[in-house]
């Protein structure tokens, strides 16, 4: 029942927030999210699936037996990790918006808690319908967070965010239902249990069916990730969203897409994935380079970081498509690391915005002399994002790229990518350094430039206060720990990844080879 508690406790918190006076709402939200984090920790310690493919937190409630719908939850190690990431980011998001939101605080924190519940639900669902409901339900709180608490163009941004991602997920639903329907017509009764569906789809679908299912799933997940060229909602949503919204959007919501790929596309339709991995990988690489080049010419810091997410998530997808344990390890790590470092960057930008009410690099700059602590954190997280070895970004990026590079050579797995893919993607490393350091050079370093007229920090001190440091410190610690000791996370994920890739060793036909090394070697 711990799993249900994880999903329902934030929801309950939301109810309490709505019922209690507005001045207590942030406190209640904080307590609720901390309690959730505590339960998540307990669940993680209690969990015995680390390193194995076993599932924990399992619980199921029969809901519509005649349709095969049971409200079934459970977590394997990867779900568990992403759930922990969500649980960790929630108290920080609440603390980060402690003073940023002054109007309609009850709704704000209520929606945040509802969002937490939905996100946790996505990671814990073992029933397709529950997964899908939670997957879609994340949109509603996010929609309101953007639409009510966003910046000037928030109405358009929220509507676009909602419709764009919703349209994609509807197509994914079609794919899901097709698989479920095939399963039902195959075995005579409906089942929406994810393991059942995955197990059936691996072998029960013909090649062309697999391709169509993959296309449908990609339509949903690619928008969410977001993969080039369906990424344009992201910069808009990010720039308009309030800080905590951006943090959760980048930190968790984008991962729903990659998690979907990991949980569904990869194990469900292996043949189609092998067939289309090069195409998707090219999209990912284009996204990496294209996003990076666009970042270069941005003047809005937040938009820059938003586009950098497009670029970074490209690495994540590439790692998944490497179809070998290296790439998948890298990719899942990337999900966590990107959540930490980019989440922190959004926090930092929010803190700057709260003080100066601008994010324009042409107007603001040289903050190092005014906000040294902020600047330290900024440089630190930028470096984590750039992938400086020793920090978390490096490990995941390195593994994604080496996985891609070695795809096809890693013995048992039918990698279809190869050195050229990795080489082009790796150019993104240079570009990432370029745009992020240019941003740092403008915003942090140089002579102090402040927007005219904004000097009154009556609420906030010039530099970060203790609360804000408390928001950033856990993320920084996470970055260092995952940078120096990623081993424990990687070992934890091994079983789950082996299970996801279980079908692939059978798909190594003699004719399929990496486009790189092997093809040339006589």
């Amino acid at each position, binding site marked *: 029942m711990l799993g249900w508690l994880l999903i329902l406790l934030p929801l309950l918190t939301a109810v309490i927030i709505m019922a209690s006076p507005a001045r207590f709402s942030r406190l209640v939200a904080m307590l609720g999210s901390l309690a959730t984090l505590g339960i998540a920790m307990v669940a993680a310690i209690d969990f015995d699936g680390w390193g194995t493919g076993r599932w924990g937190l399992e619980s199921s409630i029969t809901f519509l037996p005649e349709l095969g719908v049971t409200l079934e939850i459970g977590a394997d190690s990867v779900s568990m990790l992403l759930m922990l990431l969500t649980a960790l980011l929630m108290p920080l998001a609440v603390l980060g918006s402690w003073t940023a939101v002054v109007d309609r605080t009850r709704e704000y924190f209520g929606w945040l808690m509802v969002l937490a519940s939905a996100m946790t639900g996505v990671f814990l669902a073992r029933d397709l319908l529950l997964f899908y409901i939670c997957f879609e339900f994340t949109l509603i709180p996010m929609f309101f967070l953007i639409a009510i608490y966003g910046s000037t163009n928030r109405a358009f941004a929220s509507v*676009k965010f909602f*419709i*764009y991602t919703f349209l994609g997920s509807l197509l994914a639903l079609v794919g899901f239902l097709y698989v479920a329907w095939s399963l039902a017509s195959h075995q005579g009764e409906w089942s929406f249990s994810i393991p059942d569906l995955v197990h059936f789809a691996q072998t029960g679908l013909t090649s062309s069916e697999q391709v169509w299912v993959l296309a449908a799933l990609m339509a949903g997940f690619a928008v969410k990730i977001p993969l080039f*060229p*369906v990424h*344009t*909602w992201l910069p808009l949503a990010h720039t308009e969203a309030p800080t905590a919204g951006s943090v959760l959007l980048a930190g968790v919501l984008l991962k729903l897409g990659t998690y979907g790929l990991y949980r569904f596309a990869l194990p469900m339709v292996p043949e189609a994935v092998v067939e289309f991995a090069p195409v998707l990988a090219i999209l990912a690489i284009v996204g990496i380079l294209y996003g990076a*080049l*666009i*970042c*270069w*010419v*941005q003047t809005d810091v937040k938009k820059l970081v938003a586009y950098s997410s497009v670029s970074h998530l490209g690495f994540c997808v590439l790692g998944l498509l490497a179809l070998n*344990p*290296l790439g998948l390890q890298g990719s899942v790590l990337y999900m966590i690391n990107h959540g930490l470092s980019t989440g922190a960057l959004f926090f930092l930008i929010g803190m700057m915005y709260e003080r100066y009410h601008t994010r324009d690099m042409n107007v603001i700059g040289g903050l*190092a*002399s005014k906000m040294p602590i902020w600047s330290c954190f900024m440089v630190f997280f930028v470096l984590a994002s750039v992938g*400086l*070895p*020793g920090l978390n970004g*490096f*490990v995941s990026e*390195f*593994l994604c*790229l*080496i996985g891609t*590079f*070695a795809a096809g*050579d*890693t*013995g*048992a797995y039918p990698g279809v990518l190869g*050195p050229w893919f*990795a080489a082009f993607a*790796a*150019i993104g*490393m*240079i570009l990432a*350094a*370029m745009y992020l*350091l*240019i941003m740092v*050079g403008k915003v*942090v*370093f*140089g*002579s102090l430039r402040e927007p005219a007229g904004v000097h009154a920090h009556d609420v906030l001190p010039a530099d970060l206060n203790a609360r804000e440091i408390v928001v950033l410190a856990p993320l920084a610690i996470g970055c260092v720990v995952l940078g*120096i*000791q*990623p*081993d424990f996370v*990687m*070992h934890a994920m*091994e079983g789950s990844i082996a299970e996801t890739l279980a079908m692939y060793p059978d798909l*190594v036909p003699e004719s399929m*080879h990496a486009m790189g*090394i092997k093809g*040339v*070697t*006589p």
Partner: protein
Amino acid sequence: MTVSMLNILQSAVGVPAVPMDQVVVATDLRWAGIILLLPLLSLLLCGLCAAMRVKSKLPAWCTVACLAGSFVLSVLLYVNYNPPGEVIPLLSWMNLSWGDGALNSFSANFALYIDSLSLLWIMFVTGLGTLIAYYASEYMEPDLGKGYARFFAGVSVFLFAMLALVLSDNLVMLYLGWEGVGFASYWLIGYYYTRPAAVAAAKKAFIVNRIGDLGLALAVYLIWTTFGTVQYDELMTVLESHSWRAEFEGWTISAIPFLLMLAAFGKSAQLPLYVWLPDAMEGPTPVSALIHAATMVTAGIYLVARTYPLFLLEPVSLHVVAWVGGLTALLAATIGMAQYDIKRIMAYSTVSQLGYMFLGLGVLTTYGAAYHVFTHAFFKAVLFLTCGAIMHGFAGQLDLRKLSGLRHMKGWRITSWTMLIGCLCLAGFPLTSGYFSKDAILAEAFVTQGPGFEILGWIAILTAGLTAYYTFRVWFRVCAGPVSYEPGDELHDDHGDHGHGDFHPHAPRFAINSVLVVIAVGALVAATPYFMSNKADANIAGGWVADMVHDSTARAGLPGLAESQHPHSEEVSHGAHEHPTLFGMDPHKAMYFVSGAVGLIGILLAAYLHLWKRKSADALRGWLLARGWIAWLPRAMERKWYVDELYHALVRAPLWILGHICYAFDRFIIDAVIVDGTARVPRLIARWLQPLQSGAVQSHAVVMIGGVGIIVLLLALCLRFEWLGVVL
């Protein structure tokens, strides 16, 4: 073809790819990890000092103490280590395994690989690091309480990263150090972060280095996919246990050295990636001395030396290394001749000397390269530190036209004479350390057979002459001649003596002077290893440094090593059978005379133009500029051969434009036309259907009932007539 190369190899030879027993996994030497940890401790202490806003020199003392500890431990390690090499596991980092056999596991851990090469490097890195940190304790005084702790934190980070780079047992940890030193360099170049030039230089350094890092990353990937390991010991086992040429003609073997080369050229500022180094002089001078002259920039040499067996597999790569090194040496020297900023002259000189080192690697004398690294570390550190002392005392003045006769000024004598020692070494004055190390490289260019290596040798000799000229141009201008000076545009604002009239240069005090003397003595003493006898192998020449190279991966490039000892390199070996001669002598002997003579000519030329007839230098420049056919030469030399402009035009501007095009494409095509356009389609359809929405109840009813009716009718018909296979 799912079997990896390694599998093929193993099946052919029957050797499992386990660490060879030749390299001892030494757990009893785990204390060596403290060498790495001390800089981290120093970083922590400096961070605490910064957080507690310490106003004293405490951060400096912490750093000096920690680095000195590292140095002592390094020497102890040298004493205690057993050839040929030891692996010291410290901490796990990345370990993955998904099956048995090759390429089914990946591991890169924090572990130290101790062999003579890494010991050589860590000893001079920690030694010079300690001294320069001590020097900086005085040099950075004006920033006490402001950036003081930040500076020493940066130095600590650098030392940690550099030691990690050198001591790493695998390529991934090397990459950590590699990027780490780049980051430390970024940190320290951008130390004066309010100056746009410093910020830009820091950024440029990091980004250009990242290009090199890309090469290193790809090389690591390629090495792993080819050999199934990234650990040196395993890698060398694989390389030594097979006859590679017979089995592999694939492009990977050829590509690996070129990618490594890209990395090395980036870090060691070689053509075409050298542009960041002169700009890096925006950092505080101790940093320039430590990072951008003595230690970090030699990381590229270290990398090539460390992976030398991979280069030996592809002779062309070594030819490229040699030519790039030689050309960089010449190009940088010509630029250095025409600069006026003494720190920049030293920077170009560094690029030039690094070019020599690569030339040495390319012409198969890792010994020469390592020796030159060693000597260069000392004499270039001295030169930079004296520049720093001058800059410190003359309020940031670095223009050699505005400084003169320092050796006659009170308090500047030590500076002048130590600078002279540095200049002599750099110019290759006979019997100085630079003389021996440079000769080892120059001679080998004539000995080793390669495409145009002889021309390369002459280019190198010409460069040696140019080096002597520009080096002494500085010394004669700044330290000799009549006393005169102008203060610079002050960096340290707290002097209060801005007026040019009453400006008093403040001479260096104990910390700076003592360090100058110690390093200058070191630069002179660096000549002695050449005369020592060889302990490791009686057949080889070159003394202690050769010993240090002998027990490492770079031993193939040792003088006098028997042919049988480097069996993989038939095609790239020294022409042992018929030694070419130079002026009828053995090239090594001939070079003593040739380079000595060339150096002296350079010095005399400098003395004529910059000491005796200073006007004639300007006259020469004027004469050159007045002649249309030759005017481009001084201009191009002063403008650094327009390389920065070239980069701007060829790389930066196109990418920037591409960025804007992408952004426009994103906004106007993808977002506006495709996405929003698609989203407009329903609205257009709605506009078309809008008349249906007349508002009249009955028309609504018609549409609603009609719609439902049609659906139900179709459904009923389907059921009734079994259309679509649906049976009622």
